[in-house]
């Protein structure tokens, strides 16, 4: 029985021996060999595929340069990977042979890392090869359906113009959502007996519109409000209805994000502000909300990206957005390539936003850490 309060000497010696015995270097020879074998398989698969697919593309009238270039790049990559695997194996062999423990350990470590790296490249190359086959099998049915370059070129301008509608809906509802959801969140966190009715209303609103699928809200508002014959409200454009519906739906989600941010501000900060004589409202305005917003930039940005994608839902009330436009083109040509254009557009505008979100929150952190 080990007793931490008595420093038993014989036991200590034993521990030292066990520790030293466990310190022999590992060469990772097995993993390195396996990586080399997989590298050979990858090289063969890539080379054969490049040859077949390239030949097929040329037979279909694709220019020889375009048809062979990706294959050549892939084969070159496979060669580099093969060399990586070879080097890992050489390290492993050297590690196994080396007599000096620390040097052997270092060689073993670089063999291990090299083998892992080569293996992950091998995996990636095999997956890309499989994807290339998927595009060309069955007489290139997949490429023809989704990537008809001629159709993409001809329809791009029309689709791009319709995408402007998505952008308008996104920006207008985005701004409205940021304001509206903050109001809801503040109502949701009103204190005491007096705040109860508004608090209750905010909760009810949140439950209702988070429960309703966005597509149904859009449908109900886009087709329902025009039937009411109310002044103004019944005669808006379908884009306006889309904006109203998305604001209501996303306002409910975003207010929850705000609320989480408000509640994440430590109560000691609130106590400090109130102790200086700041009222509840001023404490919210100058201390809680500014801190909350900083904490929630990432989830807020996520909502933003999600909103951007959901602007495509407005197609169901007949708004001619990019998706609707491309559907019309797709129906006329019996080919989905115009929809591919829309997909690419959405992806292209989303990725910079995700990076921007990262940058913003990083910069804010940097600033708060900075001295003056």
């Amino acid at each position, binding site marked *: 029985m080990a007793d931490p309060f008595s420093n038993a000497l014989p036991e200590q010696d034993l521990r030292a021996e066990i520790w030293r015995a466990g310190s022999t270097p590992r060469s990772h020879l097995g993993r390195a060999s396996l990586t080399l074998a997989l590298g050979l398989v990858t090289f063969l698969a890539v080379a054969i595929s490049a040859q077949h697919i390239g030949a097929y593309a040329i037979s279909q009238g694709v220019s020889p340069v375009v048809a062979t270039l990706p294959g050549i790049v892939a084969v070159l990559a496979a060669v580099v990977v093969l060399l990586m695997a070879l080097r890992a194996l050489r390290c492993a062999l050297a590690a196994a042979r080396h007599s000096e423990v620390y040097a052997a350990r270092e060689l073993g470590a670089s063999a291990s890392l090299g083998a892992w790296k080569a293996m992950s490249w091998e995996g990636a190359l095999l997956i890309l090869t499989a994807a290339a086959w998927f595009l060309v099998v069955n007489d290139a049915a997949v490429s023809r359906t989704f990537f008809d370059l001629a159709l993409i070129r001809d329809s791009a301008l029309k689709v791009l113009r319709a995408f402007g509608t998505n952008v308008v809906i996104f920006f207008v509802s985005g701004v409205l959502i940021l304001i509206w959801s903050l109001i809801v969140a503040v109502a949701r966190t009103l204190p005491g007996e007096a705040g109860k009715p508004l608090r209750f209303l905010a909760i009810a609103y949140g439950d209702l519109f988070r429960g309703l699928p966005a597509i149904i809200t859009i449908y109900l508002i886009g087709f329902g409000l025009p039937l009411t014959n109310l002044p103004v409200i019944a005669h808006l454009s379908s884009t306006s209805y889309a904006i109203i519906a998305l604001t209501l739906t996303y306002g409910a989600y975003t207010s929850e994000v705000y609320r989480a941010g408000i509640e994440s501000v430590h109560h000691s900060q609130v106590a400090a502000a109130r102790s200086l*004589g*700041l009222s509840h409202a*001023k404490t919210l305005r100058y201390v809680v909300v500014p801190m909350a917003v900083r904490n929630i930039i990432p989830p807020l940005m996520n909502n933003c990206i999600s909103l951007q994608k959901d602007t495509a839902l407005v197609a169901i009330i007949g708004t001619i957005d990019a998706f609707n436009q491309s559907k019309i083109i797709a129906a006329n040509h019996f080919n989905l390539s115009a929809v591919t254009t829309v997909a690419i557009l959405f992806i292209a505008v989303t990725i910079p936003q995700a990076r921007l979100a990262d940058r913003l929150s990083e910069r804010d952190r940097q600033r708060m850490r900075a001295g003056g």
Partner: protein
Amino acid sequence: MALLEIDNIRKHYGSFEVISGLSLDVREHEVICLIGPSGCGKSTLLRCVNRLEEISAGEIRIHGDRITGEGVDLDRLRRDIGIVFQGYNLFPHMTVLENTLLAPTRVLGLSRREATEKALGFLDRIGLAHKANAYPDSLSGGQQQRVAIVRALMMDPMLLLLDEITSALDPELVSEVLDIVRDLAAGGMTMILATHEMGFAREVADRICFLQAGNIYEQGPPAQVFGDPQGERTQAFLSSLKRAGRL
């Protein structure tokens, strides 16, 4: 008449009585040190005075005017009573200067220029003028706590409550904070300090109150409480501090 009169107050958390019938009068310019074991109610007592906590019974008066009960303007009360916490609680999204300007400009309605001048004067006195545009996270604990004191002083409080303001600090930073408190005491600021710095309490306090289970168990001038404690509990507390090398 005393500046602050605490009159037989009680405070419950559920069925647990944290403050049990405590009374304390504080005259103007007086410095009171609250000492006692952890959990005896020092923080709670201070937080009751600026009404961050509600008392369950008794009353508290400032200059004879009752500040407990309904209908008291809490924002006005807190404008005149400063409090500094153990954890500094500076606002992390504001610079040092902005932290000190917030309340004077937004609550007292001071112009930004006027307030800045005043703040820079205070920051200069505590040797932190060069940190005016730094963010709190880049300051040491001692520097943050000094800024927190300045933030409270910006409101010209008539009573300053200090709740274990050096307990979170590394030992070598304690004195830079206590130096300020010493200057304030010399300048006649009325203060109540909850503290574990017995040497300092002995030096600056006009009166030591030893709290025990939510009440004042023994009080008196420092020389008496530290030199010749009467109560058994006081003696036990002080001798446990001696064993830990804190006295």
